[in-house]
């Protein structure tokens, strides 16, 4: 008898718990209770974005700012902590595409089919290149939202200790100067060796040498160009001269941790996301200078509108507010966790105030002038071919001459581009 009762109680518990697992999702859709500036647009829109907790907090604050201006439009935020593209693909395939999605320029070509084409005035933004980065085949599919450029962080104490004059805060040093300084900064042996720089990344340095990955119309790979090969040979030479950590030294190591620990003089791949970590640095003086040569590459993130949005009018208002409203842009750009550089000139002061004693202007200039990461639709196939660079040349673990490998990789990429 007791066992029967215990079974019944258990079943009831399961039923009660299950009924507690679903919210009344209907109740929060289409809230329209007070007048605002939204005109006819009202109702609910969904907005998906990625990012760490700190970045999500900044975005949620900007959403609150939008809600204050447009109380008739309810924004349901979908913060996707990790594996953003997997979830986005699942939602699109499952027919539950969010109305507005954060998308990076690099991922845009693969998703453009799911987005509406937008008409955007380039002159609203600090640089017309922001809008160009959001285009696929000449059509704009997202509105620029935030820029993540690269600058170089230097260990000022190490420069002074080695009697090296501090680099200019506005004029980028040449690639030759970078190498000379790296040689002077390198000292010691073994576990205490100090390096001029962290291992250099082709994705930044190809632009330093005036090269790029594709032709301007993205129809052909330019990895076989003299500039790309010069950049590759330069990277190999820094490894051979021991002014950057070699493969066994960098294996499993976090290079930012090495910079924070004082073992790296110039950290070249420095994006705004590293600024919160630098705020706690006590053991050495540091500052920011422009990326050497013409180099570095910026990531442009934009807001895209779903092709299937049932509330496109409200979604467009939201996109415009988040990207063009000074207050919203200041909230995002001025977040203490340094989300990125705002896209409109009037809001950049908020970003510079994140680290007032540092040369934040280097980021702002880089955002305007730096080359955008080039993107293709067949990212995975192309990345598979690009692996040959690391596997077979001394840029990675191989021994083959870059002059031999780069044209071969370019040819394979061109074949992929032709097939698509």
């Amino acid at each position, binding site marked *: 008898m007791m*066992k029967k009762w215990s079974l019944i109680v*258990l079943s009831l518990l*399961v039923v009660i*718990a*299950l009924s*507690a*697992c*679903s*919210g009344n*999702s209907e109740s929060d859709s289409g809230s329209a209770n007070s007048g605002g500036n939204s005109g006819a647009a009202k109702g609910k829109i*969904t907005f998906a974005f*990625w*990012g*760490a*907790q*700190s*970045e*999500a907090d900044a975005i949620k604050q900007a959403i609150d700012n939008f809600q204050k201006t447009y109380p008739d439009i309810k924004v*349901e935020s*979908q*913060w*996707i*902590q*990790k*594996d953003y593209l*997997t*979830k986005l693909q*699942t*939602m699109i*395939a*499952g*027919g*539950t595409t969010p109305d507005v999605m954060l998308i990076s320029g690099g991922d845009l070509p693969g998703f453009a089919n799911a987005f509406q084409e937008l008409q955007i005035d380039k002159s609203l933004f600090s640089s017309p290149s922001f809008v160009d980065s959001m285009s696929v085949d000449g059509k704009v599919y997202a509105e620029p939202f935030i820029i993540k450029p690269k600058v170089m962080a230097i260990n000022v104490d190490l420069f002074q200790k080695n009697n090296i004059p501090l680099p200019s805060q506005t004029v980028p040093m040449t690639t030759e100067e970078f190498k000379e300084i790296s040689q002077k900064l390198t000292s010691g042996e073994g*576990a205490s060796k100090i390096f001029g720089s962290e291992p250099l990344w082709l994705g930044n340095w190809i632009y330093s040498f005036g090269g790029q990955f594709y032709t301007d119309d993205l129809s052909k790979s330019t990895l076989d160009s003299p500039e790309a090969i010069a950049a590759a040979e330069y990277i190999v030479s820094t490894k051979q001269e021991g002014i950057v950590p070699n493969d066994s030294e960098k294996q499993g190591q*976090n290079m*930012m*941790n*090495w*910079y*924070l*620990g*004082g073992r790296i003089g110039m950290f070249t791949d420095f*994006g705004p*996301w*590293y600024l*919160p*970590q630098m705020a*706690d*640095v*006590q*053991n050495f003086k540091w500052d920011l200078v422009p990326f050497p040569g013409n180099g570095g590459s910026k990531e442009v993130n934009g807001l895209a509108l779903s092709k299937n949005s049932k509330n496109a009018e409200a979604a467009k208002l939201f996109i415009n507010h988040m990207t063009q409203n000074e207050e919203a842009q200041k909230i995002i750009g001025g977040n203490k966790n340094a989300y990125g550089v705002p896209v409109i000139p009037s809001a950049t002061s908020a970003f510079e105030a994140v680290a007032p004693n540092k040369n934040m202007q280097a980021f702002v200039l880089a955002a305007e002038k730096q080359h955008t990461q080039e993107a293709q639709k067949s990212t995975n196939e192309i990345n598979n071919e690009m692996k040959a660079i690391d596997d077979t040349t001394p840029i990675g673990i191989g021994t083959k001459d870059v002059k031999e490998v780069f044209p071969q990789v370019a040819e394979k990429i061109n074949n992929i581009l032709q097939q698509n």
Partner: protein
Amino acid sequence: MSVKKERNSTKKKVHWLAYLLLLIGSVVFLYPFIWMVSASLRSLEELAASGMSIWPEHWRWGNYAKALTAFPFPQYLLNTVITTILPIIGTVLSCSLVGYAFARFKVKGSGFLFVLVLSTMLLPGEVTMIPQFILFKKLGMLDTLYPLIVPAFFGSAFYIFLMRQFYSRLPVGLEEAAIIDGCGYFKIWRTIFLPLSKPALMAVGVMVFMGSWNNFMGPLIYINSDKWKTLTLGLAGFQGTYATDTNLLMAAAVVITLPCILLFFSAQKAFMEGLTFSGSKES
């Protein structure tokens, strides 16, 4: 006599060697965990300079407070507990019932059906993800905890296999005696098979616990609202695309890993018994 002494000393040497190897093994497996605890008590700057050392210079207990207030910890914890306990109940009930049927009801086609069930293990999660997502959308269950709970009540091939192996080894006499006494099949399962299969049920329970407690992809795909998110999603929030708050991530990870460790140690005996009994030791 001397031969016996020699044998004893060889035995001792082998023992020492075994313990030495075990000790080295334990250090290798324990070090990452100790490093995790140590990293959770350091600043990012100290973490960067610490290398292999596991003794923090300044013990920053505040990291724990910071990590656990960075996201709505109690809410995420409650959701994790619900999506762990209910799947355990569901899996234990459904898999033991189905395993019992496969072990005891030898009817035409049951062998084929069993192979069919096992073949579902060959399908990788990536293949079934989108169809399952569409299914739950049609059921109106997206952005709820249902997709993380309901499937457990419909069995899982591996656990069905585990339970069938266990039940196949129980003497048929038990069942026959019960039938003579007037027991039905359901009552036989409930009053004889279930109580006898405690070690196997514990093993299944612990494995489902580990799987559900650490489930990341399920909550990521099905849940959008903060109010239904689980601890694994909370942890992911410390990792940005490029930079990670390693110390806070480790502090939250320590707190989240503790229940798994406590459960494993408290159910260790039953867990091992269940696995070996239902595994390859067929007589």
